[in-house]
């Protein structure tokens, strides 16, 4: 898709700043929703080709740096940086933005229409926290079965994951630091599953201990970090790995606190 498909008579009057603002908005929102850098680049490139721009990106975890050049007016160029919003994984945004960029590429959407469509995507709601918490409970129970736990272990894991997830959303809604909410959620979950271990509920309580906190695992940043490494976006990869590693550390800190409160000798390797 490298052939010039733009027509300067039609798209030549889009100011570079307007285009840069739009792609910065889209790019940072994609980064915050859990897209890897290659996806941000390919989605933005589709729009740039349609409207006759040349784009170079430097994605990091905290923001996006772009340089935009106009093909129609050679000396018209701009470099801008925008910080990304708080990272909340929301894969539906990836679908919607991908559809939007293909629509621009294939149906030659104008920049006004694209801006309006993107405003709609921005206001798209996530699943209700209660539904997510119930789902989290079920998935942790399922993972507990995979770790050779029995039905009682799975019930303990489900209960712990549900309670932890509810508290996580509540603390996050009070605008505390993300790391605090994750540590407290890990603490609460491990408290419940740890009590299950102390009172020897089920025949393999370690399975519940290990799997109930898995809903906090930063799976998307971890996997995106490896994908970025493979595709050569090194700074973004390092940033994501650091972020994910620190979340893992926070989970471990929360778990350590409750394990030591309950007595480390109750937990065998």
């Amino acid at each position, binding site marked *: 898709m490298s052939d010039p498909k733009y027509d300067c008579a039609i798209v030549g009057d889009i100011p570079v700043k307007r285009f840069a603002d739009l792609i910065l908005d889209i790019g940072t929102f994609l980064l915050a929703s859990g897209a890897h850098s290659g996806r941000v680049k390919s989605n933005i490139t589709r729009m740039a080709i349609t409207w006759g721009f040349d784009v170079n990106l430097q994605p990091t975890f905290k923001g996006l740096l772009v340089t935009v050049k106009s093909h129609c007016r050679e000396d018209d160029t701009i470099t801008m940086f925008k910080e990304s919003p708080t990272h909340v994984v929301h*894969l*539906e945004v990836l679908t919607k933005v991908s559809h939007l960029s293909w629509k621009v590429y294939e149906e030659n959407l104008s920049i006004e229409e694209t801006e309006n469509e993107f405003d709609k995507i921005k206001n798209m709601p996530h*699943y209700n926290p209660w539904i997510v918490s119930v789902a989290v409970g079920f998935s942790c129970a*399922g993972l507990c079965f995979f770790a050779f736990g029995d039905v009682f272990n799975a019930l303990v894991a489900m209960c712990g994951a549900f309670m932890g997830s509810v508290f996580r959303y509540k603390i996050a809604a009070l605008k505390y630091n993300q790391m605090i909410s994750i540590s407290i959620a890990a603490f609460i979950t491990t408290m419940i599953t740890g009590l299950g271990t102390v009172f020897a509920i089920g025949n393999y309580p370690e399975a519940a201990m290990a*799997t109930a906190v898995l809903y906090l695992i930063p799976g998307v940043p971890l996997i995106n970090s490896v994908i970025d490494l493979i595709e050569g976006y090194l700074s973004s990869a390092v940033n994501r790995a650091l972020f994910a590693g620190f979340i893992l550390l926070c989970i471990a800190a929360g778990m350590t606190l409750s394990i030591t409160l309950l007595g480390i000798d109750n937990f065998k390797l």
Partner: protein
Amino acid sequence: MIHTDILLSIARDFAIAFVVGVCWGVLFGTPKKVLIVAGLLGGLGHCLRFILLELDFGLIMATLTGSVAIGFIGIVAAHRVDNPPVVFTMPACITMIPGMYAYKTMLAGIKITDLSVVDDNPTILITMAHNLTLTMSLLFTLAIGICIAALLFRQTSVKEIEFAKKIERMTHFK
């Protein structure tokens, strides 16, 4: 008799992985329409891994095969449901997340902060190193499965991959 046992345990594995895949999809905000695809892919990948584990293929090899299978079928499924594949391969691959090894790494890490415990039982260091390496390797294999399209095909978008287009045409009744 033995065959029904094996089939039953495979079916159980598939069913649990289906639920886990759908629920991770909800956590990650996957669109409602493709939640079921995430579940099916998760079930398929995990029961493939289960079968290979039963056949003594080794944990890392089995997980790699499972996640690569998810990646490939995800490319074809992306054409059918018109979504980027990450949207459902991500929750599907997370069904194979190495939680138990990560937990053991952490527990051993807490225990070695106490010197007397390490003096009594030095193998705890080996346990920690082993579990840490295993966790990292398994995470890496999951990532390979998800970005298999970027690794093996030269197109930047899954929409332009030829073999997926062919399969899509073969399976479409219109």
